[in-house]
């Protein structure tokens, strides 16, 4: 049994954006040499996300637009207060809620050393509170 964990950094460049990380995940799987198994991808942050959808710009825009409609910046959130452990105010409740709704991880089977996914499935790192240097984890389990 092989278990490999890799942490990958991504510099986001906008307040919100969807970044296609499918090639990076493919590469990690390929490097491990695992032929049969499972890969799990997870963001390390609570104001970003990980999701899978068709990889086209119009959908990227729709996801971000409609998440913002569901969780507007100006709603009455309890999180809008001083957080002493952070030394600053937490006024980004909507970014956490987007992260919860869109999810923070995804899993795919590995067969013959490659990820098995639908032809249109693309893995996205979702930035909801950027720009920031972010980290996501890719763990491969198998043999």
């Amino acid at each position: 049994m092989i278990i490999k964990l890799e942490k990958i950094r991504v510099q986001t460049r906008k307040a919100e954006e969807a970044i296609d990380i499918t090639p990076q995940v493919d590469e990690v799987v390929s490097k491990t040499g695992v032929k049969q198994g499972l890969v799990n991808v997870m963001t390390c942050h609570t104001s970003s996300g990980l999701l899978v959808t068709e990889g086209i710009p119009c959908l990227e825009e729709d996801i971000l637009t409609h998440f913002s409609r569901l969780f507007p910046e100006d709603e009455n959130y309890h999180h809008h207060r001083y957080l002493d452990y952070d030394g600053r105010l937490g006024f980004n409740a909507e970014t956490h809620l987007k992260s919860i709704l869109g999810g923070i991880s995804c899993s795919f089977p590995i067969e013959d050393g490659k990820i098995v996914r639908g032809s249109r499935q693309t893995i996205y790192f979702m930035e909801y509170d950027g720009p920031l240097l972010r980290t996501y984890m890719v763990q491969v389990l198998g043999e």
Partner: protein
Amino acid sequence: MRIDFHTHPVLIQEMVDKYPNYARMARNVFQIGNNFQPLETFHLQMDVAGIDRAVLLPIDCERARGDAVSSNEQVADLCSISNRFIGFASVDPLKEGAAKELEQAVKKMGLKGLKLDPALQDFELRDSKVYDLYEAAAGLNIPVLVHTGMSWAPSTLIERGHPMLLEEAIARFQKLNFVLAHWGWPWVWEATALALKYPNVYLDTSCLYYDSPREFFQFVFSKQIPTTLLERSLRNRMLFGSNYPRVEIKNMVYALGTLELTEGCLKKVFEENPGRLLGLK
């Protein structure tokens, strides 16, 4: 050119690697818990907020807290790396040779103003030694930005930053421009009164202590202080300041934009007033 007049370079990864006490001071004294980020993130935060240049503020609190929260050297270092930064100096008014140190920071390091924080630096604003420093700043023709109002930092007294403690100095040093940071909150009317009376007083908008930036601005700069007062009487004395990284610059820009200020007024706040104060062409 749009300027953010109030930022703290306390979370820059490159500085953690270069200066041994940098991270400890950010965590233990400045009390900020966010992750350290590469310098590139600072620039990107400015980009998404539509800000061209940022004033970097150090705090020399070595006597009171063991070291500086960003030193003059670190600020000058960052200014040498990026021309989007405008560095201020900080010296301890109670330290022997403070005026000389300020002169060197301005003339040799190229720093453009003086930052003082009576709470973190642990001094009284009416101490005669502070007046010596004002004299030096006036001679160097640089502005003085003073932390006024609330201080979150532990082991500090909020009352140290009461804006009215500055009135005597403001009246005495008429050629020295004073920036009252954080609009003096919670003493916003006192800070406003000083700006109304004295032509050498400026107020920065880095003011956020509860709720979201929009909610806070809507209350303080609309219900508490009428927006008309800002537009009509203080349009030449307001400076945009974010207090990044205690708050992201984009959120403060957005909050200011929700007030009913004219484009002409906002242009003064973001561009003309800071440009004039810093002697930028």
